[in-house]
C-alpha cells in the first residue's frame, strides 16, 4: 500500500510540477510565429509542447526547433511494439513490413530471439542510422489485449473483436475507447475451417455436427456417416482468437469443457500438420494455414454446402469468417508506424496479403454464371409465397449484372452491421471516391431470411438496402454524383444462400449484395 502511495506522489511530482525552464523554442518557417515551451514528446512528425497556453501539438514540417530540448531530428527512431496473435503476427505482418520497407527504400534487418520474439529494424538504404524498430512479442489475441491495457503494446493483432470487459479495462487504464471504429481496422480476412487429413473421405460437415463434436456429444466418425473410428479433435490454444471466435459463433458461449483427448496446439500451422498426419483427426483450422490438410465444406440441413474460398470469405457467404483486426491505443503512433499501417490497408498491400495466405479485402467480381448454385437453391425452395413470377423478376434483375464480393451482413435480426461489413462500407466508399466505378450503376440488393410473411420480408430487405446505400453514400464524401448511379432494390426471401432452419443459415440469408452494371 505504501509503495502504491509513493508511486502516486512520484507521478504527481513529474506531471504536476512545471518544468524548471522552457527548453524549446518553435518558430514557424517564415519567422512570423514563435512559441516557447517544454518539449513533452516528438514522434518524428509532431512536437507535443507544454506552453503557457497549455499543451499544444505542432506539425514539425512547419516549424524550426531551437533550444536544448530539441530532439535530434536525424536520430529519431520510430518504435512500435506489436503484440497479439502469433499465428497471424508471424506470417502476415512481417510480409507486409518487408514489402513496405522495400517500397520505401529501407534496408531491413531482423533480430530474432524466438519465433514469437523478434524485431524488424528499418534503416534508409545504405545508412547506419536506425529509422524504425518494430518489436514483436506474440502469443494470443487474449494476451495482446492484456499487453495493450498494460501499456506494453502499441498495436494488437487479434482474430476477434475486443470484448466488453477488455474495452472497459482499457478505458480505465487510459488507452481510450477501443470500441471506437478509429481504434481498430480490419487488416485481412480469414475463416475457421473444419480440417481433416487428405486420407479422410469426408467432404462436408454441418455446423450442428461440428458443435456436437466440440461439445463432446459426438466422438465417432460413424455419427457423421463415415467409417467408424474415434474422432480426435484438434483445436488451437483456448486463448487464441480463432478458437474464441468459434466459441462465440458456433457454441454461443465464452467457455467450454473440451472433450477428453482433445489436442491443443500453439499455432495454426502445428494444428494443420497434426491433422494432416492423422486420418481420424478433425481440426478447427484457419483458412490461411491449412498446410497439408484439407478443408470440409459447411453443410446446411437442406443439403446446401458452402466451402471456404477467397470469394466466399470476402462475401461472407461462408458462415465462419474471422476478420483479422489491428487495434491501437488512443495515443498518436510515430509517423513511420502510421505510414506502415496506411500501406497495410492500401490496395497495394492486398496482393501481399493474398500471397501470405490470407484473404485480402479487394472487391472482386462474381459473374452470374458462378451463381448457379444460388439460383438452384432459389428454385428448390420456391413455391408457397415465392412464385414463378418472383423468380422470373429476380433473374431479369440479375441479367447483365456482376456481383461484387463485398457484401453486407447484420448482427442478429437487426440493421446493425457486423465488423467485416462495417469495414466494407469504408472500402466501398473509398473505391467510389477513387472513381473505380465511374460511369457504372451500383445496385444495393437487399435480401431477407424466409421467416415471416413475404411482404414483411420484402419491406425488411428494402430497409436494409437503403441503410447500406445511405451509409456508403455518407462515407463517400468526395464522389461526383453525376458520374455514378447508386440505386437500391429489394428481393425479400427469394434468393436464399442457405436454409433458414438454422440460425447461421438465416444470418447468411439476411444480406445486402452489391451488383454492378
Amino acid at each position: 500500500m505504501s509503495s502504491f502511495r509513493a508511486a502516486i506522489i512520484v507521478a504527481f511530482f513529474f506531471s504536476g510540477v512545471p518544468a524548471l525552464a522552457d527548453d524549446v523554442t518553435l518558430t514557424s518557417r517564415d519567422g512570423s510565429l514563435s512559441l516557447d515551451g517544454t518539449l513533452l514528446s516528438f514522434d518524428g512528425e509532431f512536437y507535443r509542447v507544454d506552453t503557457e497556453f497549455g499543451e499544444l501539438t505542432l506539425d514539425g514540417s512547419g516549424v524550426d526547433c531551437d533550444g536544448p530540448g530539441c530532439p535530434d531530428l536525424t536520430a529519431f527512431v520510430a518504435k512500435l511494439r506489436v503484440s497479439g496473435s502469433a499465428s497471424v503476427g508471424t506470417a502476415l505482418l512481417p510480409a507486409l513490413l518487408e514489402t513496405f520497407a522495400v517500397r520505401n527504400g529501407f534496408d531491413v534487418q531482423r533480430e530474432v530471439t524466438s519465433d514469437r520474439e523478434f524485431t524488424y529494424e528499418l534503416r534508409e538504404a545504405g545508412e547506419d542510422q536506425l529509422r524504425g524498430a518494430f518489436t514483436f512479442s506474440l502469443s494470443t489475441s487474449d494476451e495482446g489485449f492484456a499487453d495493450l491495457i498494460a501499456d506494453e503494446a502499441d498495436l494488437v493483432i487479434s482474430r476477434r473483436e475486443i470484448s466488453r470487459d477488455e474495452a472497459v479495462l482499457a478505458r480505465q487504464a487510459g488507452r481510450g475507447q477501443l470500441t471506437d471504429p478509429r481504434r481498430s481496422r480490419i487488416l485481412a480476412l480469414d475463416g475457421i475451417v473444419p480440417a481433416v487429413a487428405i486420407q479422410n473421405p469426408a467432404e462436408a460437415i454441418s455446423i450442428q455436427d461440428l458443435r456436437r463434436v466440440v461439445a463432446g456429444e459426438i466422438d465417432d466418425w460413424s455419427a457423421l456417416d463415415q467409417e467408424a473410428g474415434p474422432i480426435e479433435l484438434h483445436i488451437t490454444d483456448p486463448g487464441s482468437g480463432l478458437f474464441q471466435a468459434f466459441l462465440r459463433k458456433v457454441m454461443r458461449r465464452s467457455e467450454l469443457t473440451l472433450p477428453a483427448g482433445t489436442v491443443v496446439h500453439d499455432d495454426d500451422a502445428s494444428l494443420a500438420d497434426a491433422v494432416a498426419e492423422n486420418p481420424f483427426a478433425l481440426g478447427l483450422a484457419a483458412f490461411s494455414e491449412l498446410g497439408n490438410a484439407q478443408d470440409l465444406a459447411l453443410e446446411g440441413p437442406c443439403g446446401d454446402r458452402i466451402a471456404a474460398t477467397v470469394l466466399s470469405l470476402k462475401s461472407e457467404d461462408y458462415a465462419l469468417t474471422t476478420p483479422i483486426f489491428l487495434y491501437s491505443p488512443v495515443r498518436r503512433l510515430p509517423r513511420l508506424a502510421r505510414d506502415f499501417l496506411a500501406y497495410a490497408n492500401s490496395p497495394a498491400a492486398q496482393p501481399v496479403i493474398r500471397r501470405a495466405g490470407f484473404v485480402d479485402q479487394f472487391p472482386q467480381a462474381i459473374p452470374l454464371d458462378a451463381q448457379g448454385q444460388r439460383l438452384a437453391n432459389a428454385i428448390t425452395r420456391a413455391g408457397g409465397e415465392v412464385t414463378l413470377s418472383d423468380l422470373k423478376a429476380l433473374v431479369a434483375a440479375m441479367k447483365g449484372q456482376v456481383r461484387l464480393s463485398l457484401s453486407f451482413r447484420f448482427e442478429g435480426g437487426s440493421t446493425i452491421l457486423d465488423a467485416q461489413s462495417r469495414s466494407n462500407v469504408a472500402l466501398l466508399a473509398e473505391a467510389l471516391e477513387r472513381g473505380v466505378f465511374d460511369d457504372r450503376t451500383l445496385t444495393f440488393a437487399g435480401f431477407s431470411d424466409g421467416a415471416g410473411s413475404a411482404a414483411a420480408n420484402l419491406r425488411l430487405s428494402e430497409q436494409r438496402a437503403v441503410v447500406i446505400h445511405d451509409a456508403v453514400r455518407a462515407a463517400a464524401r468526395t464522389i461526383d454524383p453525376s458520374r455514378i448511379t447508386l440505386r437500391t432494390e429489394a428481393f425479400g426471401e427469394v434468393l436464399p444462400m442457405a436454409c433458414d432452419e438454422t440460425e447461421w443459415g438465416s444470418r447468411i440469408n439476411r444480406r445486402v449484395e452489391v451488383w454492378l452494371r
Partner: protein
Amino acid sequence: MRLFSDTARKRILSLSLMTLAVSAMSYLTQPSAHAQNTLINPDARHCAPQLRLSAQPGAMIQLDAVMPCQTNARVEVTHGPMRFSALTDGQGRVSAILPALTDTAEVRLSTGTTVLSGRITAPDASRFTRVALQWQGDAPLQIHALELASAYGGAGHIWLGDSKAPLRAVRDKGGFLTELGTPQGSGWQAQVYSFPADPTGSGVVRLSVETEVTAHTCGREIRGETIQADFAGQPRAMPMMLRLPGCQAVGETLVLKNLLRDLKLALK
C-alpha cells in the same frame, strides 16, 4: 537431442585433389581474374590463378579453382547474395558444388589479395526454388524441410543428416539440401534448400531452422542472412541477428519455424 555422425555430415565442399580435365561442359576463365598477387610475387606465371565452372544436374555449379600462391588460405566465395568461406589446400586448390540462383550465374572467389570470377549459364536455375540460410561463425545451424506432410525422420524430411542428392530433384521432383563453407573463425557457412519450381503435387513444405544450444554457443549472437523469394518472387537477402538462448538452456534445441517462409506449392 539429435546428433549426427561425421559420415552423415556430407560436406559438399571437398578439398580433395582435383584434376583440371576439360570436359565438354567445363568452362575456363582467365580474363576476368585479377591476379593482384602478381604484385607480391614476382613470379607471375607461377602464381596465375585459374577458375573452372561447370554445370551439374539440379542447376548446380561445380567450382574448381587453383591459386598456387594462396595455399591453406581462406577464400570467400560469393554468387549473387549467397556467400561462404572455403579453404585452399596445400597446393592452393579449392572445390565446391553450389546451387545456381540465376540462369546466368556469376561466381566470385576472393582471398583478399587474389580475386577470381567466372560466369556460367545454368539454364535450369529457374526450375528450382532456393531458400538459403548463411551465417558467420561455427554455430551448427540446420535447415530442416518437411515436404508435403512428411513426418520428422520420414522420407520427406530433408536436413544435414539426410540431405538427398540433387538428382532427386530431377528424378523424383523432391528437394535437396546443400551445405557450403568450412566453419572456421569468423568465416561464413551456408545451407541451401532447393525444391523443383514445377512440383508434381500441391501442399506445403515446412522450413525450420534448428540449432542445439551448447556450452560453446549459448548466449551468443549469430550474424547471418536469409535468402528467399520476396513477395514479387525475386530472391532477396535479409540480414538477421539470431540471439541464442542463455547457458541455462544448454542441451536444448532452439527451433525457429518462422525464420524461413514455408514453401506453398500449388498445382495450377
